[in-house]
């Protein structure tokens, strides 16, 4: 019997809402949306946590410019404060090294993290998800009962095709999908994401391709000044 499965509910019990930023396709802006959303919520005074579960391509620490942090060990692991966010990531343990983990190991690492992390009281825990519907997605669905989803897609046919599949399975499982954000709009195929949302889920709005975003990576003040952050603040569901 795996005892860790018995404590996860308790570890998450003082968190009001748990939001997975997902979408199926890689590179659509999930990590950017998750990180900047967490920053914005923290700035507005919400007690906010951010959990990067993309073990294969962790990015949230790069976006937030996190360096030299490590969780405090006291009856568990206390996520350190990164620009006002309680931030947890596998990079505390891997450093810059590659982490070649098979799905079974990803599952075990997720269970361990959920079992030992002491988030405390939070208004929001944002989870930055990897692409795909493999172990990580299946595990958060299985382990975190109150999970809500925000899907991020680009207008590209390649992204919307994958997003459609993810939306289909989440809805088949009757999981709450808060809606779809369209990211990196360049004028091309405007309106495609809204069509994917259709009657199936809420279309939360569009974020333009923002050439200033790259220069703001790693600098939270600059990040919050980008057009990306401003448009995100208009389309996220916690306004």
């Amino acid at each position, binding site marked *: 019997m795996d*005892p860790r499965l018995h404590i996860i509910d*308790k570890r998450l019990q003082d968190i009001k809402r748990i939001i997975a930023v997902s979408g199926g396709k890689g590179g659509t802006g999930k990590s950017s949306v998750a990180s900047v959303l967490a920053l914005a919520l923290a700035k507005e005074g919400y007690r906010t946590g951010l959990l990067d579960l993309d073990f294969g391509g962790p990015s949230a620490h790069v976006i937030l410019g996190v360096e030299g942090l490590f969780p405090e060990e006291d009856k*568990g*692991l206390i996520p350190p404060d990164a620009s006002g966010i309680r931030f947890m990531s596998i990079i505390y343990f891997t450093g810059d*090294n590659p982490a070649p983990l098979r799905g079974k190991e990803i599952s075990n690492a997720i269970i*361990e993290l959920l*079992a030992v992390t002491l988030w405390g009281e939070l208004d929001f825990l944002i989870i930055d998800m990897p692409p795909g519907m493999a172990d990580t997605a299946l595990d958060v669905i299985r382990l975190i009962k109150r999970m809500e989803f925000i899907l991020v897609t680009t207008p590209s046919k390649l992204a919307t095709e994958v997003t459609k599949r993810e939306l289909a399975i989440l809805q088949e499982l009757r999981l709450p999908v808060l809606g779809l954000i369209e990211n990196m709009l360049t004028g091309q195929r405007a309106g495609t994401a809204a069509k994917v949302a259709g009657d199936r889920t809420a279309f939360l709005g569009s974020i333009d391709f923002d050439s200033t975003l790259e220069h703001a990576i790693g600098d939270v003040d600059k990040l919050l000044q980008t057009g990306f952050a401003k448009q995100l603040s208009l389309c996220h569901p916690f306004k």
Partner: protein
Amino acid sequence: MHEWALAESVITAVVDEIRLNNIRKVTKVDVKVGELQQIDIEIFRFALENVMKAYELVLDSDAVRIEIEKNILRCEVCGKTWSFDDASCRPGEDEAEAIHFIPEIAHVYIRCPECSSPDFEIVKGRGVWIEAIEGEH
């Protein structure tokens, strides 16, 4: 002391089991502690006893048995079976600490001694595990 969090998971599992199976008196809890995670058994036993109190769970002091489980790693590429405490491939101190928190981090720092692959299975001796809970109804 993140051993406390793991001890708490064990006690929660015991309490869940008591409720689920209407156990009146727990007679045996067999806990395996995998070598790979390098849990300090003294700290872990101390944490278990204190968490028990906090959860108002009364167990005979000899009901809880903690056993260390040897770790066995098996390479998915060449089939070699080995143990991470083979002196030849022990990780350093920082690396061992990372593995202490998340045993899967072994794949970051440990390689197959035969073919150098990071693609191995943790067959046994990973971390904290409950082998058996027994009780009287």
